[in-house]
Structures are given as C-alpha cells and as structure tokens.
C-alpha cells in the first residue's frame, strides 16, 4: 500500500507538497483526491510544490499536465512551484514543456500569482 500525498487547504487554495518518491499508484491517488477536494472545498487555485522532487520522468511530467487539465475543468488554476534546475532541464530534454501549466519560483510567488489572477478576474 503506497502512502497518499496530503492535500492541504489555505483559504480557497489547495496546496499539494510532494515529499515522497512518486510511484504510479501515488500519482493516480493524488489525481483522484485532488479532483474530489476541488469540488468539495470549491477551491479556485491549486499549488503543487515540487521543491523536494529531485528525479522526474515522463510519467510525472504528464501527471502535472493532467492535474492542470482536471483543475481547469473544475475552474481552478494550477501553479507548479519550486521546480529545481535539474528537473527543469530533464523535462525540456524529454520534450515536455508543460504548456497550460503556470509556474512560479517558490510557494510565496505562487500564492502571489494566484492572488493576482483572482483580483484580475474580479475586475473584469
């Protein structure tokens, strides 16, 4: 039984901090939990913190894109934060540019980004 990645809530934003090695089952569980939580908490933003992730493969890359697509369908914006340089280089070499996923350098900047886009949406 693989452990589940916890989904934390800050206001109307959900925070997922990935601290463990990602196995395929963990990733699938996470997608499921996240979709449930977005609906249950009517969240409008999801932050995925991958500061602790050192190794990625194409599966993880695709997971990020999938989570972003699921969230967008449920009207929540996804921001991936804290990607390490080595991880970024690997993803580029794998040909994954994660179009449609917003990114920020760290958690703080990610929160600021979501806050900005929320006020932008209210103004319109």
């Amino acid at each position, binding site marked *: 039984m693989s452990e589940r990645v916890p989904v934390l809530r800050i206001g109307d934003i959900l925070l997922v901090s990935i601290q463990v090695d990602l196995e395929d089952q963990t990733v699938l569980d996470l997608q499921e939990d996240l979709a449930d939580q977005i609906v249950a908490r009517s969240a409008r933003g999801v932050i995925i913190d991958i500061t602790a992730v050192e190794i990625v493969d194409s599966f993880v890359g695709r997971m990020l894109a999938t989570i972003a697509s699921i969230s967008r369908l449920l009207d929540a914006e996804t921001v991936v*934060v804290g*990607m390490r*340089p080595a991880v970024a280089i690997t993803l*580029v*070499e794998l040909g994954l540019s*994660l179009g449609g996923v917003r*990114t920020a*350098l760290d958690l703080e*900047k990610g929160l600021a980004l979501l806050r900005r886009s929320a006020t932008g949406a209210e103004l319109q």
Partner: protein
Amino acid sequence: MAKQVSPRGPVELLTTDREKVTADWIDTVAGSLQGRISRAEVDRELRELYGALVEGLREGGDDTRGESLSEARALLTELSRNRARQGFTPSETAISVLALKQALEPALRNDSADDTTAYLRLARVLDDLALFTVEAYTRTREEIISSQAAQLMELSTPVVKLWNGVIAVPLVGTLDSARTQVVMEKLLQALVDTGSEQAIIDITGVPAVDTQVAQHLLKTVVAARLMGAECTVSGIRPQIAQTIVALGIEFGDIITKATLADALQHALRASGVDLVAHQGVGR
C-alpha cells in the same frame, strides 16, 4: 677498432665511444633546437637519458615497454612535457631520440656484422622510444587544451544581477552543446539562488547563430519558464536576425529584443518597476 669484444650488443655499441657519441648527439639536438634551449640544458638532459638508456639496456634487453627502461621512459616523458609546454613541434621533440641513431652511424664503418646487428637492434629500441616521446608530447598538448577549454568555460559564463529580480547572462564566443549546458545550469541555479523572475540572455557577443545554437537557446528559455521565470533573448544583431529568418528558425512566443537596454526595460516593466526621467535633465 682494436679492442673488439665479442659478442658486441647495443650496450657495447653505445659505450665504446661514449664521449664522442654523446657529444655528436648533443650537437645535433642542440643544432635542431636553434638555441631556444641552452646547450647546457640539452647537455644535462641527454647525458641523463644516455645513462638511463645504457643502464636499462644492460639490465633487461630491448623491451621498450618493460621494467628495465622505465627510468629512460620517465626521463623522456619529462623531456616531452617540457618541449610541449615550451611550444616546440613534435619533430623537434622526437629528434632528441632519433639523433642518437645518427650519432652512432660512424661506429658502423668497420663493416662488422655484429655491429650492424647491434645497431639495428638499438635502432628498433630508439624508434620505439621516439614514438613514445611523440605520444607523451601529444598527451601533454591534449592536457593543456582541455584545461584551457575548462578555464574558458568557467570564465565565459558569468551570471550578473541587473536589478532586484532581474538577472542576465552575457554570452561571448561560439556556443556549443557543452557550453550551452553550463550556461543553462548556471542560469537556472541563479534563478533559484536570487529568487529572480526575470532572466535575460544577451547574445551580442555570439558570432553566429545556427539551428543548433537556436535550439539550445530555446531549451534554456523553456526550462526557465518551467521554473516560473520569464526569459528574454537580447542582443540580436541585424545579420543574425537575417540568418535566423533565412534558416527558418521559429522563436515562437519567446520575447526577443534588439538590445540589452530594451530587454532590461521590458524585464523591469514586467516586474512592476517604472522608470521615470526627472524633468530638466536633458538627454
């Protein structure tokens, strides 16, 4: 020659006329180097080598890769390294060994079959050792080149901070895969270390942009974007713009600017900084 000893081998051939042979040898080598190394130095080097060679041959025969000639080989390595560092050519290095053959030729005049056999055996040893010098020479040269390449790599990729949250890499010189890799890693690491959201790659000093270089630049920009930073390419000279278009390279949605100043202005605006010129200050 009166004092004919039998059987004469390479060692005897070398030692019979020791003084004359070494003097001839040193003369030829010093002549070929045209005074760029002092005669005294050549004299010292070659006498040492001569001693080691005689000693080695006496002990273990003519196996040039064997234990007995290791002393001679060490001396030759040292000699080749010095020659390579001082900028001599490979021939000028190899002549240090090959000139000994020439110096021994007078010993063949008395038409003795033993002498000829000994000379031929010795010639084979010396040829091997000459090859060995060239090898050592090349190895030293390669070491020099790779250390210079590493230094160049270190020197040529500084990441500078232009403003709070804005960093830049001024690229100078030709870009290849290895260098771009270093640039990419340094830039991305600097983004993390400084928490900058804006990066500028300035290619004013890059003489030519081909498809490969463009590919590398694109990768860097995409990687920076994955980490949550925006990357601008600046310093595209008119000819380079023409080349890029002629090659059909697509920069897509990557922001490009003609000068570093334009790129900085764009980066500042994107990070929410306004530049205001004071009234009365003429420009």
